[in-house]
């Protein structure tokens, strides 16, 4: 009975957070719903195996995408802690076998958090020719009492593709310590993107590391941050061109929009093959004056114009 209540509460929060409730009920759509350390729902579809093991502090999850499987609908994942306090530790093992293709949409929900810790340790293997798109969106309350610590080690096989987007723009961030490290094999294509909106006393640390180890591997580490009030952020984007004809780029933009804001960007580009090329661009600054004036010349107030610009950057 308690599990049913929690499931319903999670669904309600998931719906409020903009999640697709129909997708969680549809048998043709793979899903996994975890509240705290309880698995409330898991639905496998053809080509996907989901194994879970509840632990004292969270859940161990193993997700397997079978060789050659092309998964029609995105797999929906929902993780959350609804009470004010709690620890959720997700240990995630993903194996996307050769030539498979899948998209996963994760919603992480902590609407009432006062002292909540959400940790994810992911070990992800993308097989040769496989494609994996991972989109993680967080929904936090306004109290900022969450520590989010997602860490992932991703290996992308030959001609494989990885694309991930981590979004935390609803509610207060609290503390974010994002650490994704990716190793790309020959002709792989990889993209890491982080979008966060820091407010009040939020603290954001982002580390995106790309090791382009195979010939002609390509990668992009991108981040978009907007910081208000007294928010602090440090973004480290590192790209290593370790093989011939690798191409990598670090692209960091931090908009500073508060008197107490502290923003840092630390790009690192490293090449140990003369035929590799890695580049970086990092910009920290206030809202672009020309953008502001353009929108104000269309009749928007300064606040409305800032809102439009910020939403665009974080989209």
């Amino acid at each position, binding site marked *: 009975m308690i599990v049913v209540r929690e499931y319903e509460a999670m669904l309600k929060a998931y719906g409020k957070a903009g999640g697709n409730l129909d997708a969680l009920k549809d048998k043709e759509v793979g899903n996994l719903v975890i509240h705290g350390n309880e698995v409330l729902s898991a639905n496998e579809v053809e080509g996907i195996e989901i194994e879970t093991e509840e632990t004292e502090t969270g859940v161990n999850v193993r997700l397997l995408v079978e060789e050659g499987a092309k998964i029609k609908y995105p797999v929906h994942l929902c993780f959350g802690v609804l009470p004010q306090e709690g620890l959720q530790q997700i240990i995630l093992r993903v194996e996307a076998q050769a030539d498979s293709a899948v998209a996963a949409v994760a919603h992480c929900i902590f609407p009432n958090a006062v002292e909540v810790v959400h940790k994810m340790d992911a070990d992800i293997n993308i097989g040769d020719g496989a494609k994996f798109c991972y989109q993680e969106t967080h929904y936090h309350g306004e109290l900022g009492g969450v520590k989010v610590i997602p860490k992932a080690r991703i290996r992308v096989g030959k001609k494989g593709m990885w694309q991930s987007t981590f979004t935390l723009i609803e509610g207060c961030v609290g503390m974010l310590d994002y650490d994704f490290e990716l190793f790309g094999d020959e002709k792989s294509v990889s993209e890491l993107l982080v979008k966060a909106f820091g407010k009040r006393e939020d603290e954001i640390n982002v580390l995106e590391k790309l090791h382009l180890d195979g010939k002609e591997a390509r990668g992009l580490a991108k981040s978009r941050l907007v910081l208000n009030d007294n928010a602090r952020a440090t973004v480290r984007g590192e790209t290593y061109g370790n093989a011939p004809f690798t191409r990598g780029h670090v692209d960091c933009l931090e908009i500073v929009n508060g008197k107490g804001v502290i923003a840092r960007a630390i790009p690192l580009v490293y090449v140990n093959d003369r035929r590799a090329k890695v580049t970086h661009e990092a910009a920290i600054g206030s809202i672009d004056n020309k953008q502001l004036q353009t929108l104000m*010349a269309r009749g928007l107030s300064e606040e409305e114009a800032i809102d439009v610009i910020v939403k665009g950057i974080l989209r």
Partner: protein
Amino acid sequence: MLEIRSLRLTLNGKPVIDGLDFKVREGKIHGLLGVNGTGKSTLANLVMGISYPDEGSIVFEGQDITRYTVTERARMGITLAWQEPARFEGLSVREYLSVSRELDSTEIENYLWVVGLPPAEYLNRAVDGSLSGGERKRVELASVIAMKPKLAILDEPDSGIDVISLPHIMNGITEMSKQGSAVLLITHSEEAATVAKELSIMCAGRIINSGPPREMCQWFRNNCAACNHIGEPRYRGA
């Protein structure tokens, strides 16, 4: 509709706008022709409220708006399209056109057609660096038309664009006039200036002559092209 009286602005000790008097009539295209550095863009910024003059006044529809903010002027019906339009990450053409007022899909599509951009191809494009200079200027003009302003200040809408974009830009300006907007068209292209009903020649922060476009273009060729005295014109007081 717009009356500028004895406007002066000095920057770094040099008069950039030097006692300028000027009028734009309702629903008409008024061209402003001049070589680089004569203060045309500065005048555009003063009219829009991006910067403020040291002396003189700007009167719009009988109201002194000299100290009004950009937003206040825009809400009265004045807008400006910059020579180098801003680019916006994550903002689609559809959203950009609707930023000033609610528009339905048909209206947005119509405004894009006016500037020669097929809606199916452009509606969901971002107004960022992925658009070429010509495309961006056409989107900018479409957004100005979509606002239905009483006065649109177009700062060199024809500069730096390809030959394919130019007729669409000119078409957009003409359409804007047909919908009842007055246009202050800043240019240094004689070809662009000919769409105007009246043309003024600007030099060293002043209007030095005004009249019918073809006559003024001829006057400009005969006098200004040979002048080269940017900032120190021979025609001071002409």
